[in-house]
């Protein structure tokens, strides 16, 4: 089936344009325990929750320009929970002194027929992976420590293989654009995690 021509429109998320402020880092599995311990102390006093998610990355290739990328994610531990469809924009270029990566972000909760729907729309799955780990919260800050695994047989999430010997640490917050106090807050939080993990703003484009 020939993909229909696509015009990529700027995406706006509802009335308020939400931005994701992101810092990333990685921690070796040996140091994971102490990092979790530290996070437990720093974050809001609720028990850290375990999660197991399956993420599918869909691409819509148009005639010209960059392909349009959507991330669909579902929880393996909570099968009844709605799927999560996410669009992430390009990182904002701008203030170099800003401490966090800022990008446009649209979050949609979706029903379980999301993969079929995306397929019907012409999206094709690019890759998939399984992320398992802990999720913490400190106010509006979200800290996700996850271990990424490769899915060996497409669609079978039981048969996985760890991608590396380390875990991904992400510190993110959703806020309306222009809230630079947020990035300041994130920086100070990231400062407290040193030297266990160095959270930095990592431009995904540079690593492609």
């Amino acid at each position, binding site marked *: 089936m020939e993909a229909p021509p696509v015009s990529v429109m700027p995406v706006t998320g509802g009335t308020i344009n939400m931005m994701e402020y992101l810092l990333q880092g990685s921690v070796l599995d040996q140091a994971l325990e102490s990092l979790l311990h530290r996070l437990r102390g720093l974050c809001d006093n609720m028990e850290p929750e375990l999660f197991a998610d399956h993420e599918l990355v869909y691409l819509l290739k148009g005639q010209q320009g960059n392909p349009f990328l959507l991330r669909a994610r579902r929880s393996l531990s909570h099968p009844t*929970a709605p799927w999560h469809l996410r669009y992430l924009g390009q990182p904002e270029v701008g203030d170099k002194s800003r401490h966090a990566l800022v990008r446009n972000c649209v979050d949609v909760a979706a*029903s379980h027929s999301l993969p079929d729907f995306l397929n019907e729309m012409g999206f094709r799955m690019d890759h998939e992976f399984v992320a398992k780990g802990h999720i913490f919260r400190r106010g509006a800050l979200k800290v996700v420590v996850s271990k990424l695994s490769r899915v060996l047989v497409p669609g079978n999430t039981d048969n996985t293989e760890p991608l590396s010997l380390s875990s991904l640490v992400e510190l993110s917050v959703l806020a309306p654009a222009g809230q630079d106090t947020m990035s300041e807050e994130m920086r100070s939080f990231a400062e407290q995690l040193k030297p266990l993990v160095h959270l930095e703003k990592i431009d995904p484009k540079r690593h492609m």
Partner: protein
Amino acid sequence: MSGVGPAVRVSIESTCEKQVQEVSLDGMETYVPPLSMSQNLAKLAQRIDFGQGSDSDEEGVEAEPRDPQEWGKTEAEEDEATVKFQPSLWPWDSVRNNLRSSLTEMCVLYDVLSVVKEKKYMALDPVSQDPSAGKTPQVFQLISKKKSLATAAQLLLKGAEKLSKSVAENQENRRQRDFNSELLRLRSQWKLRKVGDKILGDLSYRSAGSLFPHPGTFEVIKNTDINLDKKLPEDYCPLNVQIPSDLEGSAYIKVSIQKQAPDIGDLGTVNLFRRQPKAKAGTQPWHVKLEAAQNVLLCKEIFAQLSREAVQIKSQIPHIVVKNQIISQPFPGLQLSISLCHSTGEKKNQRASPEKPKPDDHLYVLEHNLHQLMREFHKQTLSSIVMPHPASAPFGHKRQRMAGPMAYDKAEISSLQQNEGLLEKIIKQAKHIFLRSRTARTIDSLASRIEDPQIQAHWSNINDVYESSVKVLITSQGYEQICKSIQLQLNIGVEQIRVVHRDGRVISLSHQEQELQDFLLSQMSQHQVHAVQQLAKVMGWHVLSFSNHVGLGSVESIGNASAITVASSNGEYAISVRNGPESGCKVLVQFPRSQSKELPKSDVIQDGKWNHLRGPYKEVHWSKMEGRNFVYKMELLMAALTPCL
């Protein structure tokens, strides 16, 4: 001192001050140690030419100690000059020199001997063996002794200083340790963090789910303003806390219900009286302080929440927020006031103020419930924040995330939105409490006013905050077993009272006091008639007619009159009772026709069988009857009318 020949000019300079004793193989020069003063003296004395003349000699000897240095220098230079240059002049110089020196020595010896002999200028004393000790003058000895004593003293002083320093350090260490242990104890109970060189703590309820914007930070201070030498006071604590000034003192929320509206001038000036925080034994002063501050913070949060709601909520009679008081009208003519009492200074300690509020003014239950509601609210905010699954999803209510995929309609979404606020809940509770107390008062006043029939109320101990129930029994004294007709279950809600009859009828009464009173009065009047019915059964009388609501007779203002007619077992007598809540009871007895004397003998009914016709009614002067209550009187009456077998 130029040379002899004009062609050669030699310039002379003195050699180095110290003479070289020997030069070792590695080139190291060993110097002759400088002469001590006595040696110098001896050396100089050697050079004196005693032969030159006694006058000059005497002067020279005396002058020697005065300025030996200067004198020695010039002499030495001259000496050296002769020593250096004469060898080149005369070949016999050494012989001459030796001769000369021996001559000099001889002369000196001679002079010395002559001087000693004369004893005019000099006396010889035996020389002590120790040259330095013997030759050191007493002044020097003294000075050196003083010096060594001083060094000894200095050493001792240094030691003492070190000792005292270590003692102080010890004490300091101990205090430091105390501080650290106190800090540890503080840490186990309060949230602390280090910012710069300060230790800040958090006494807010934010971690428990509070959204109150007050930072609620306190600072931990090391208590050092105490003199080390003095004995530590009893309540000394090395750790002190500095709480924000607006959280100092004590505070509480006062809730009260007043009947009449106070003057508008009184608004917002709630009398404060300070409740002294009672320190439990064994608790640290900082703990008491922090707990008090936390309580103030919670009270402030409650009040802020209530005032915000009071302004936002639309009600028929708007809530008034004035200063530290919120006034609401739950029922007409009734006023609920919630006030924040915060006393800071010690000057508020005048407890014996003339207008000290009466203890019953407080609604402690509501005050307690307010705190409880606030905590519930905290818990709700905390528990509503569940971690999102999948992890990439944003924080938020799970049900709100479900709304899209599950296609919720407007009603379902709006049901997610808002639950009742704190103020609404507390007003409802206040209404209920008020309604309950008024019901109790109504029942009590009826019970005390009306002795017959008796009214009993059984309150249930366990209540909901919005509902409680009471069982009302109407009985006659002494006949509790047979008169169980009226049992009412009163369910007191927020706005109304639901009455459940024994037979299952449900009546709803409003919050008006009169309604309940009227209802109970009508029930009591019905009870009497019911009691007669029950009594008739026991006594073997027959019920001829019974009606709870009689349509005849005068109209009652409350409810309806009820009536019963019973006939004796042989049918000769009949008793008819009409009882109204307002008109009271009226008892009539019907006699058999034969017994009525005043009935004119009719010509028509001559036959004996007509004797069984019912006769006329006669009213009983009920108040003149014997008996302590209605049923007893009735029993007596029935007994009197029952024929003896």
